[in-house]
């Protein structure tokens, strides 16, 4: 209802108004915002920003869909985490340590014991919407939980990369100690307003990637819009070309430059989609058909419909299609559908539990080694 009102208001009130109509517009905004708060609270049970209006006031449609998008759930809220709320008792034994994750009355705890000593810490930061790893805090140090929840097993398993750890105490068994910089990076990409320069601002943190995280200037725009000033519109992201989009999304998903400069190699880099995509022969910096945004709408849930992605491939490899320089593009001699099943294979992370789609688009031969 509130979303509809917002659209109505946007459609009926001229952007530049003065005097009484302006005042009416402001009253309407306030009214709508109250409604939106109820709507959003129903939809997600998330804390709202304390000041009206919200982005949803005007952008109701995209806000409504974004509520379900993975980036919105990059960090889940204690008490409203679907994984833990639906799995109140999780347990596993790893290398002689027993891990228990319990949820009761909206509060979750993470316990590790070796049968003699035991350590329990609260879970305050839940990273991930499906596969979930917890960042734990003890004595001023942050830990990446030694075990994570994996949907494939519907249970706990060793967090990827942590299998090499060899804990000697329950504190060590808690998980991998995360450096200050890694902690800043984790929260900066999984939450909003979590970082200010070199400082973690967990008191201000809002879980997940909120609008202003990508749309720089959104807060100012919102405040100005409430005063009928629409000159401070955030930069539009849709027109970005393939290289710009890869670098923009790569701020969190890792850019090609970042991976190369950091010397990250091996199957783990399959998580870094912009890097993998830019390794593809078909990647053309100035062609939007190979942009991240050509296939993915960050405001929507991730689609697993192969037919949808086939259309994206055929946008270049379909009959009569040409490259941006006018040259002909080869069509696949094998098939016109399920392109990604052959050309973008799933790659299992070392340690198992989870596989990622390799965005390095290529002709894959059986038995090929993972190309770095």
């Amino acid at each position, binding site marked *: 209802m509130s979303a509809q009102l917002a659209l109505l208001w946007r459609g009926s009130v001229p952007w530049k108004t003065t005097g009484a109509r302006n005042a009416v517009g402001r009253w309407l905004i306030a009214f709508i915002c109250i409604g939106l708060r109820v709507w959003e609270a129903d939809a997600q049970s998330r804390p709202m920003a304390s000041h009206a209006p919200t982005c949803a006031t005007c952008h109701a449609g995209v806000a409504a869909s974004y509520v379900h998008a993975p980036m919105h759930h990059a960090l889940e809220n204690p008490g409203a985490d679907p994984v833990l709320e639906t799995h109140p008792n999780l347990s596993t034994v790893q290398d002689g340590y027993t891990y228990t994750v319990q949820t009761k009355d909206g509060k979750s705890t993470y316990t590790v014991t070796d049968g003699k000593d035991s350590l329990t810490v609260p879970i305050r930061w839940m990273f991930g919407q499906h596969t979930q790893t917890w960042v734990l805090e003890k004595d001023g140090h942050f830990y990446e939980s030694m075990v994570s929840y994996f949907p494939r097993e519907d249970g706990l398993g060793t967090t990827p990369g942590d299998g090499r750890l060899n804990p000697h105490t329950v504190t060590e068994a808690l998980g991998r100690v995360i*450096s*200050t*910089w890694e902690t*800043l990076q984790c929260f900066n990409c999984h939450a909003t307003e979590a970082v200010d*320069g*070199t*400082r*973690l601002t967990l008191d201000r943190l809002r879980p997940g990637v909120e609008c202003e995280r990508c749309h720089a200037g959104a807060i100012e725009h919102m405040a100005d819009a409430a005063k009928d000033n629409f000159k401070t519109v955030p930069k539009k992201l849709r027109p970005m070309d393939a*290289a710009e989009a890869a*670098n923009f999304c790569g701020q969190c998903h890792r850019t*090609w*430059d970042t991976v*190369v*400069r950091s*010397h990250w*190699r091996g199957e783990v880099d399959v998580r870094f989609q912009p890097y993998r995509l*830019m*390794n593809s*022969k*078909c*990647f*053309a*910096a*100035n062609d939007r058909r190979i942009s991240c945004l050509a296939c993915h709408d960050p405001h929507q849930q991730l689609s697993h419909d192969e037919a949808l992605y086939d259309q994206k491939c055929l946008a270049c490899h379909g009959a009569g299609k040409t*490259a*941006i*320089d006018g040259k002909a593009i080869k069509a696949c001699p094998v098939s016109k559908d399920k392109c990604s099943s052959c050309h973008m294979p799933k790659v299992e992370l070392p340690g198992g539990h989870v596989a990622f789609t390799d965005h390095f688009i290529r002709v894959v031969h059986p038995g090929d080694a993972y190309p*770095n």
Partner: protein
Amino acid sequence: MFVAPNSKPITPRVLSPKPQIPETIGSTGVPGAAGRFGLVLILLLLISSSAHSQQPAEQFDDIASRAAGARDQGNLPLAIELYSQAEGLKPDWAEGWFYLGLLQYSSNAYPAAIEAFNHLLVLKPGAPPALALRGLCEFETGAFDDSLRDLEEAVAKGAANEPRNEQIIRYHLAQLLARVGRFQDAVTQYQFFADRRIDDPDLLLGLGLAGMRNRMFPKDIPAEDRPIYEAAGRAGYTFLAGLTQEADSQFNQLFERYPSAANLHYFYGALLFSHAPDLAVGQFRAEVNLVPSNTENHAILAYSLMLASRYSEALPEAEAALAGNPGMEMSQLAMARSLAETGEEKRATELINHILKLDPSSREAHMALAVVYARTGRREDAYRERAACLALER
């Protein structure tokens, strides 16, 4: 008691220390004489385990035995004399050269110790313990370039793998690196101390000097100049220890207390640079504003702006840096990439080709060239350049 890697523990009984030398290195002490003794014992074990004499002549055997006895009793002058005699009889006795050098080092007879280690290194080329000890002796004699060469090689070969050896080696190496202007490498050496919370005013002073690009040794700093370097070293140490928020506060206090001090902002920027180039930009910018005539300030600012993908801002800084020093590769790379990203592909290509001519394996130059090709629609060439970058990494 000292423990060498992959060996059983040995006790100070093996070599009695000079009376003024403590038996162990205190956890908060600056590596000095005490550390030296620790190093000596470890290195001794390493050498002795690999140096076996073959059927010595009776006379040699007798002298060698008496030398070891004198050494055990702490009679260093006699032990030195006897080892010298033994080496006269059997110059290929590696163990003897080692003990001789070691005892001379412990007696502050550095030139003689260097001579002994020279003999040892002829017999055992590249032996890390001998390199490390010779490097420390060279430091004491003022042969700093030789000392730097030896200590770097020794560290590269693992001479610093035992934490208590590492203190003395790294502390001296850090000073030598700063002396030749390799400040970032010097600061890196201090990471070891911060990781282990080894704390001492002289260490902090050394770190402060390196961070603020001062080539002087800590011992040469006048008392009135120490406070700013020590405070800077303290802030740097806090940062290296991972306490970034505290470090940020300490640096900001320093900026207030010493608003016109050159290289303070640079120091903080350089620390931030390796983790977050975008955060370093502000510090380098402040340094440029303080000392605009410093070409290196413009260069590092340009480079950090480039890494932060702020290419249009990087361009004027790179130009300023190149105006002062046209040959500086960091500025050239920042310039080339920024030109490529801002639509000046022709100038970028010329500069990149110049860089690649001098350094065909320059990763950043290949990355910039890939951007030039990408921006000009040369998809296959861009692909080839990206592949070239990845091949460089393998």
